[in-house]
């Protein structure tokens, strides 16, 4: 229980529009997002004294702080491992404000991941030195395994073989996300739902992954503002309480290439997160009304249901049928459209949607949503959150 249950909260969310070409610099997107999050909370940005980042963030806190006119920054950190660190930025912020290291902490992600360097183009130019992390790519890159989709494809084939899942089961995730995105004016794919048939004829990216199994690189920014229960009282918004926040790495962990474990169909690092979230929040799968599950690639969504105990190992394909993960189903997932439908902002937009569900302001509002699960990158060192409308 390393984050205090329900003693801290997300009190502001802010975002730019999501697009394939923002027309602005990432620094401007970061600044706009942070200003929007402060405005949402009703907080003077110069009151912010902490910044919580995760790696691959190229807009460092010092320059954002300079733009915001922040006179002193007392807490700043960067969690490693890219998309796995999204929820961890909130965890770090919660610990910082709870401990007194800071009063108000901003966490953000902003980039032109589509119009500038395309994130999905691969790591072929990655190798620079014989340091351990560069060497780690030598076991895959010379063989042509260069992009996140390709790394994910290796897991997907084994999952299908071992659990009898099919490409259609992956497709059902995409269909649910796109159905939700279709209602969301902020989403990339607003007004553009897809059918399972469309998923099945979309082109192969890395067999067995199809185009509609993959999120699309996006331009945009999202920021979150975290503070304590006491300070939240003086702000404009109902707090989205942080019921639990946790990180996880499991045995023989690699970055999306954990191919050497006895079983590669699970996400044991997500299991490490799940155990902590349930323990520290005092909640369980039955207490969750909606979930924002990291969905850069559909095959890596299925084992998340299993790791969090919504169903048994290998049973996710049965759990997601009949609209169970869509609005009106047993566990609506990614009600903003997820990264497949709204935008791929490394999961920070999923946290923002979790806040909206708790506030009751989602475009796809789940009736009676009190507790919402949010996860970060799958297949990587990761993190997760339970947000709640019920404070401590």
């Amino acid at each position: 229980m390393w984050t205090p249950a329900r003693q801290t909260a997300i009190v502001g969310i802010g975002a730019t529009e999501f697009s394939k070409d923002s027309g602005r610099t990432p620094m401007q997107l970061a600044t706009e997002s942070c200003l929007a999050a402060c405005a949402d909370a009703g907080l003077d940005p110069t009151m912010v004294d902490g910044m919580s980042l995760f790696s691959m963030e190229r807009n460092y806190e010092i320059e954002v702080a300079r733009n915001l006119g922040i006179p002193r920054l007392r807490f700043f950190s960067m969690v490693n491992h890219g998309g796995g660190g999204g929820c961890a930025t909130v965890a770090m912020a919660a610990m910082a404000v709870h401990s007194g290291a800071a009063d108000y902490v901003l966490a953000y992600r902003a980039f032109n991941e589509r119009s500038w360097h395309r994130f999905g183009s691969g790591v072929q130019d990655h190798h620079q030195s014989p340091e351990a992390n560069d060497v780690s790519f030598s076991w895959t890159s010379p063989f042509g395994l260069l992009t996140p989709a390709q790394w994910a494809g290796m897991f997907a084939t084994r999952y299908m073989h071992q659990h009898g899942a099919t490409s259609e089961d992956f497709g059902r995730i995409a269909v649910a996300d796109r159905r939700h995105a279709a209602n969301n004016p902020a989403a990339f794919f607003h007004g553009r739902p897809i059918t399972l048939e469309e998923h099945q004829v979309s082109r192969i990216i890395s067999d067995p992954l199809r185009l509609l199994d993959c999120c699309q690189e996006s331009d945009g920014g999202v920021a979150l503002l975290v503070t304590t229960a006491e300070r939240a009282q003086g702000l404009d918004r109902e707090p989205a309480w942080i019921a639990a926040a946790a990180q996880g790495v499991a045995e023989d962990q690699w970055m999306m290439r954990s191919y050497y474990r006895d079983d590669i169909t699970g996400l044991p690092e997500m299991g490490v997160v799940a155990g902590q979230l349930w323990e520290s929040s005092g909640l369980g799968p039955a207490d969750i009304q909606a979930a924002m599950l990291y969905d850069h690639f559909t095959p890596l969504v299925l084992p998340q249901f299993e790791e969090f105990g919504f169903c048994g190992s290998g049973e996710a394909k049965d759990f997601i049928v009949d609209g169970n993960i869509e609005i009106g189903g047993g566990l609506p997932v990614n009600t903003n459209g997820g990264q497949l439908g709204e935008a791929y902002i490394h999961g920070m937009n999923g946290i923002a949607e979790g806040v909206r569900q708790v506030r009751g302001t989602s475009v796809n509002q789940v009736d009676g949503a009190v507790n919402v699960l949010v996860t970060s990158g799958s297949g990587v060192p990761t993190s997760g959150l339970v947000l709640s409308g019920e404070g401590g």
Partner: protein
Amino acid sequence: MSDVDAALDTALQSLVGGKGPVQVATEPVGASEVSAWCAVMSEANPLFVDEVVAASGPHGGIVAPPATLNMWTMPVRIGGGSVGRDTDQPQQAAYQLLDDAGFTGVVATNSDQAYEGHLRPGDVVSARTTLAGVSPQKQTALGIGHFVTTEVAYANHHGDPVGTLTFRVFKFRPGTGRQRGDEPVDDSPRPERPRPRWNQDQAWHWEGLRQHELRIQRFTGSGLLVHPPAVADPTTHDMAYDWVVASGRGTLYSWTAPEHPKAPAFEDPLVVGLVELEEGVRMVSNIVGVRPDHLEIGMPLEVCWLDSHDDVTLHQFRPARPGRRTDTMVRGDVSVGDRLPPCPIDVTTDLVKSGALATFDHQDVHHDGDAARAKGLPDIIMNILTSSGLAARWLGDWAGDEVGFRSLRIGLGASNHPGDTMTMTGSVTDVGEGGAVTVSFFGANSLGNHIHGSAELVLPEVSRGAGGRA
């Protein structure tokens, strides 16, 4: 069509339907020639070579492998050969007309054998050829030309028919191909693959690959094998290690086939597999010689090597050569869609030359590198009868000694040059009455499909067991 073309066409069509005189082999089918053929093809069926086993087998004695059907009347065995065209033979007359009209290029496109009986040692084979057809002028990638189809009927010295060969060649005008000019040819060199990086914790692994050794780290205290290499044994924290050289055998644990974005350093189709070595560790590697739709989790694999950079060798894995069944499949053992085990065949200079000689094909492009290069080929090429023999051997390895062959139809594509590997893959496409099974197959090399084709086989009702020895 020009007047000249029309006149040629008329002359060619007038030959169609013509039959040549019967040609009789100067030597009988010989047991030692069969034995030599089996050695070259790695054919292990005792019914072709072992008198004792064959006597109690389904044929009542030694028979020649069906795929040898047309080799017993090759030119060197009918007293003919290299002295000009025997225009008594209608196909030769057609070839001469085409040569004279400038269609001097020739490439064989199809060799379809159909079997009616068995040849046995001592049989004297006769052949009679019919010119079955000459196509209108066609434009292909090779050039403008005509397909010429012959049918040869074979009989033994008793006059019993033993089978037919439908043989098709394409006679074309050199230099009229589509590939030059019309289509942009990308002949820019392939960029290098991403270069692996290593430090002293893994250098021994990469040095091993240079020597074609697949080295796996072994922590000497516990004996634990670890891949990719680590600094410490995670169970004991012992840092002392050496390595074992893996056997190179493993199975396919998972795979993905990247298609988009294309990385220009890699061949297409690109398959990246996760290989579980028999020593117990897994490694990521390319899977070569097998199309993605023929991959199966658990399929046996064996290591092979790729020199990817001046100073880097990478391991690759290919389907392991399947073993030969010791019994014969019976009716009901196979269903439509069943896949045959993929089988790599190393195309060595030795195999190409000895295959040509074992099948009495003395054309210089199959054994003389200088002659092949003088004809514009990069090196000698495998002859059709060797390709057919290898395909038949692979089919027999899968089905067993007592399988019957009704036909073996082969379409020819990219040449088999020494140094390449041809991988046979195939699946059952039809299961009919009386044990009839049709297999459709491909033999692919680095240039594409060397052969594609189908075979009609007949499975027995019951298997007599190991090579009929039971």
